[in-house]
């Protein structure tokens, strides 16, 4: 029987984020002995918040040094908890903090690791993990004989654990950091300079913009400023998250006029991100499979494009409106503004 350790980190306010509860939910369904390990400034409130999750034991590494997302301290803390819990399977939510350290921790434990896992299950007693290869172009289900098996579970792939609060007994694991482990200090968080937030991982809608927004319009001129205004206004009304194609993001590097708020962080596709949103609306996008990967995990998809044969949309979108996106989105903004 597996001992499944779920490693979680607390947020800045001491709580557990949704991906943490999803990882816990997935682990709890696998059977075996569930153990929880927590890392953060103060882990007791977080442990109490999931006290009825069915864990046989709670381990914690806490203190100011473990508040920040830093490789050396996070890896040391995770390693120490793993050595106490002696798990056969380690599951973490695939946050940037865990993605930074999990493979290193697996190496220290002499284990193996799979990241960006989209599902874990048991088939005839054997544990399986589903994950994508070649940048979301093919999906595989893998099994491993090697233990411990460390798994980073992507956000949005499992229901969050609905465990109620209570009083959890946390066994504190003492971790003393070496001088070398203190060489890095997290000094802050930087938000990309923009008039407003454009990336919202929890948004219901992903709004994808393509290079067509910056190209010449029917009057023979480009209207980049107007395009920028329309896009930002739509984001404001709809609270959508903004994605961009590589070609649009790269325009800046080619010396062309660009949308001022569009950066590589907005880029989706083969060399960008593949965000998960319930709905996606793409505008002025064109391209083949590598670009379409950007909305692989978007459930309902609509596109606005002047090309009725656009390979971005055919077979990949539910609805393709053959129309001028600038015109349509201006009208959409008018309607959304009137609704408010």
């Amino acid at each position: 029987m597996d001992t499944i350790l779920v490693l979680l980190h607390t947020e800045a306010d001491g709580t557990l984020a949704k991906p943490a509860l999803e990882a816990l939910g997935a682990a709890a369904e696998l059977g075996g002995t569930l153990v929880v390990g927590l890392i953060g400034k103060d882990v007791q409130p977080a442990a109490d918040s999931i006290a009825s999750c069915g864990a046989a034991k709670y381990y914690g590494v806490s203190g100011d040094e473990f508040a920040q997302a830093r490789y050396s301290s996070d890896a040391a803390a995770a390693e120490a908890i793993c050595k106490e819990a002696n798990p056969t399977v380690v599951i973490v939510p695939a946050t940037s903090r865990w993605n930074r350290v999990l493979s290193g921790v697996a190496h220290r434990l002499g284990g193996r690791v799979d990241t960006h896992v989209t599902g874990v299950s048991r088939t005839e007693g054997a544990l399986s993990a589903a994950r994508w290869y070649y940048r979301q172009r093919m999906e595989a289900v893998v099994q491993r004989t090697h233990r411990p098996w460390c798994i980073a579970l992507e956000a949005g792939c499992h229901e969050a654990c609905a465990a109620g609060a209570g009083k959890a007994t946390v066994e504190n694991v003492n971790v003393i950091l070496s001088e070398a482990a203190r060489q890095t200090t997290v000094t802050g968080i930087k938000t990309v300079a923009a008039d407003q937030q454009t990336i919202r991982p929890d948004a219901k809608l992903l709004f994808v913009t393509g290079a067509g927004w910056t190209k010449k319009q029917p009057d023979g001129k480009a209207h980049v400023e107007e395009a920028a205004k329309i896009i930002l206004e739509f984001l404001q009304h709809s609270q959508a998250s903004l994605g961009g194609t590589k070609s649009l993001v790269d325009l800046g590097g080619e010396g062309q006029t660009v949308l001022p708020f569009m950066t590589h962080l907005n880029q989706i596709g083969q060399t960008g991100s593949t965000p998960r949103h319930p709905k996606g609306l793409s505008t002025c996008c064109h391209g083949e499979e590598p670009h379409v990967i950007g909305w692989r995990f978007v459930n309902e998809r609509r596109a606005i494009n002047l090309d009725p044969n656009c390979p971005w949309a055919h077979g990949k979108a539910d609805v393709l409106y053959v129309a001028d996106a600038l015109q349509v989105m201006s009208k959409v903004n008018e309607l959304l503004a009137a609704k408010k």
Partner: protein
Amino acid sequence: MSTPYQIVVCGSIVPDPLQTLEPIATPNGPALKNEMMLPAVLDPWAKHALYEAANLASKQPGSKVYLVSLGPKAKLQQVMMTMAQKVPFELVAIDGSSSGFTEASEVAAALAAAIKAIPGVDLTRLLLFGGWESASRGAGSTLQMVGEQLGIINQFQGVDKLTCNADGTLEVLERIEGGKHQVSKCSCPPAVLGWATGMLPEPPNNPQIGMVNMRSIMPALQKAQPAAVGAQGLSFASVSLPKQQRTTKVIKDMPADEIASEIVAWVSQD
């Protein structure tokens, strides 16, 4: 005062992203159909790492850039013909599989051994670069493991910017959730930096750089050590292409007002 660094970039080759990929089953596990026939490119994020490395080396006199690459020798040669023209580097080639279906820990062991074998390598001055994920396995695991094997515990992933300060400290911007960057300060090398896109455009081809690079690339390819990387202990229950093909409803000749109304209604639905 500038500080010279030894910058080792780990980067393998991947099929050109515009190629259609199809998995097949082989006695050694899954592979890509016609894998050896597919045109290859240097892994996109590793490529960014290489450009950032060259840019840093150009600003820090005395610094040197090595590209450590694991792949079939013939494919490596094909890719290096292009990459050699971009920026100056010295190739360390390892002859082995570049498949995404190999085990990250085995690849990491081969890379770490090759880095340790670089003549005169000073691990205390090392900046280990690479892509934060590959376009093949896409796990973001290998670089962390190489760092661990080299004893490097200052590690950063999803790096978009590295600033080497005059006092020898390193300031790093790493991507985190919500389109934000975490800013960290590291007092000194060695460090591992898994690059995201970075801030640099692709350098234009420079035949002079290409000629200089090729003088060392060809001998490096000739003496590439074979590495038996596989996927021990890993079994694939299935590998398949996403089958979902949507029936796209194409709407032509609908006035913009009506399309806008439909979109607003759709966006507003729960």
